[in-house]
């Protein structure tokens, strides 16, 4: 059949020559080397969403962010709701620890609910942090910023809770929303909600 002839001829034309195959192998080897290089030099990305503003809950995102940066991760921490207090230069130094609702606290809930008890438990934790030479929230923020961690402050909650952007640490990114967080999470190898 005449229809077969062009088909056969075409198939013959499709068979690559030895030189073409060699060139293709070189091309693929280069691409593989590039990919391996990138994988070795760039640890990847981490995205954390920080939603809490108590003294105990400020630590996990900051410790993980600074440590991941030390591994070479590109880190963004998106702060929303009470998490904004961690980025607030003054309030970050006055974060509290609740005396109620935490079964591991050495204070019964009934006693913990008395006026001034949150202050007592907060002082207790602050003293322990000092005695143990554990970094303060402020130190962790400054160190993380030095290491290139990007701290983002959610614009919607800044407006909702009436924050003054000037009062955040220098270097904090504002004017970002959920879409920015989702993009970072989609790109990231590690995503955490704290």
């Amino acid at each position, binding site marked *: 059949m005449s229809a077969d002839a062009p088909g056969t001829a075409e198939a013959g034309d499709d068979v690559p020559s030895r030189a073409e195959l060699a060139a293709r192998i070189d091309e693929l080897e280069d691409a593989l080397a590039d990919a391996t290089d990138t994988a070795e030099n760039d640890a990847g990305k981490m995205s954390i969403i920080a939603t809490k503003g108590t003294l105990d809950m400020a630590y996990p995102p900051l410790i993980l962010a600074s*440590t991941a940066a030390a591994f*070479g991760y590109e880190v963004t921490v998106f702060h929303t709701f009470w998490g904004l207090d961690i980025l607030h230069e003054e309030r970050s130094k006055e974060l509290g620890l609740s005396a109620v609702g935490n079964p591991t606290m050495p204070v019964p809930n009934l006693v913990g609910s008395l006026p001034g008890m949150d202050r007592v438990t907060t002082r207790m934790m602050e003293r322990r942090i000092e005695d143990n030479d*554990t970094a303060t929230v402020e130190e962790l923020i400054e*160190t993380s910023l030095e*290491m290139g961690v990007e701290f983002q402050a959610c614009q919607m909650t800044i407006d909702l809770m009436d924050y003054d952007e000037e009062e955040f640490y220098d270097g904090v990114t504002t004017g970002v929303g959920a879409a920015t967080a989702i993009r970072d999470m989609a790109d990231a190898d590690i995503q955490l909600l704290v």
Partner: protein
Amino acid sequence: MDDYETAETLDVKGQNCPMPVVKTKQAVDGLAAGDVLEVLATGPGSMSDLGGWADATAGVELVDQREGEDVYTHYVRKTDQ
């Protein structure tokens, strides 16, 4: 007995997680490729933490770790990425 010389010593004795690892990274950044950093730490967790960090991080290699009575000494070499 050592096949390396220490270019710099970082003293993080008494400091707690995450500072030993974070400060080691910052100190290594200031070294030249091939240099070895000596890190003095007091937390037993530094054995696992600094080992794990060096293992998973590009541009560094763990040369040695020594467990003393109170001080854990770590040797980290900066490599050519």
